[in-house]
């Protein structure tokens, strides 16, 4: 007959169970690390292509095209991870994550139209990065700790793009949407299950 487990082992096991349940119940863990690495790679390619465009309209079209590709990759990998870790996307913490994340994204879309109409091209990279970062800071309150940290880094790069010379804009986008996605995607993939 197997000997009973010592009490302190059972106590540790119970505490571990409570912590894991609270983590799963309180945070949205389906942010896809590998998906972010893929998105970051496409953003680096987009930055190289966008830098060669002769008109601001073509530069904008390049980045909007990259955003659509990123949305498709990010969406697909997130759904896959959500199924894998059994973390519902549209209920509980997932719902709160999206509500917090999508509000700055909607503002970003609206400001893009306004800045495009006013031909204030140089403000676009900083605005996108700042609002994307804001989305991760606010939504990240319902996710694992690294997500709001990533949002904060996007905001810092966004501030540099907004306050620096216009020539920095495209390369700040490369550093943010490319570099930060790859770095933080790697951290998330390694520490938080893919």
């Amino acid at each position, binding site marked *: 007959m197997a000997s009973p487990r*010592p*009490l*302190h082992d059972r*106590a*540790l096991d*119970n*505490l571990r*169970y*409570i912590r894991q*349940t*609270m983590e*799963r*119940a*309180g945070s949205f863990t389906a942010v896809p690390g590998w998906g972010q690495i893929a998105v970051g790679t496409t953003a680096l390619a987009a930055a190289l292509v966008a830098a060669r465009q002769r008109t601001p309209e073509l530069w904008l079209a390049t980045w909007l095209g990259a955003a659509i590709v990123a949305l498709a990759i990010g969406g697909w990998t997130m759904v896959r991870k959500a199924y894998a870790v*059994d973390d*519902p996307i549209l*209920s*509980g*913490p997932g719902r709160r994550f999206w509500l917090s994340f999508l509000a700055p994204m909607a503002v970003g879309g609206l400001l893009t139209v306004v800045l495009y109409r006013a031909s204030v091209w140089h403000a676009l990279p900083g605005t996108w990065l700042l609002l994307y970062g804001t989305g991760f800071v606010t939504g990240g309150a319902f996710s694992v700790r690294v997500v709001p940290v990533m949002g904060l880094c996007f905001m810092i790069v966004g501030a540099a793009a907004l306050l620096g010379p216009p020539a920095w804009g495209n390369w700040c986008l490369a550093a943010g949407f490319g570099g930060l996605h790859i770095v933080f995607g790697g951290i998330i993939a390694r520490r938080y299950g893919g």
Partner: protein
Amino acid sequence: MAKSGAVRKPEAVAPPPRGERALRAAELDRLIHERVRLGIVSALAVNDALTFNELKALLKTTDGNLSVHARKLEEAQYITCSKSFAGRIPKTEYRLTAAGRRALERYLDHMEALIRATRQG
């Protein structure tokens, strides 16, 4: 036995380990010691409210199991249950009460005390 006037000698058994004494000192809350009930209380501690289906998915349990354990916690007034309709679909929502939160805190203290006691011992 007392009637016979004989004083019963204490049995020569080894005293329980220190951690075990610590565990016995404070009465363990059996109600939330059970895994599913502990899971329900823990999950509700970090959420304002969770629906029946959210809890079921989170704890990977069956409808019957969850409802039995949730009812026990409800009877102890550790959680409250409210039923409503989202359109035509019935929705059951659970919330942790102040008593439930206190019970979880006591349970956590108890487990930590047990671990501390065994480490010191």
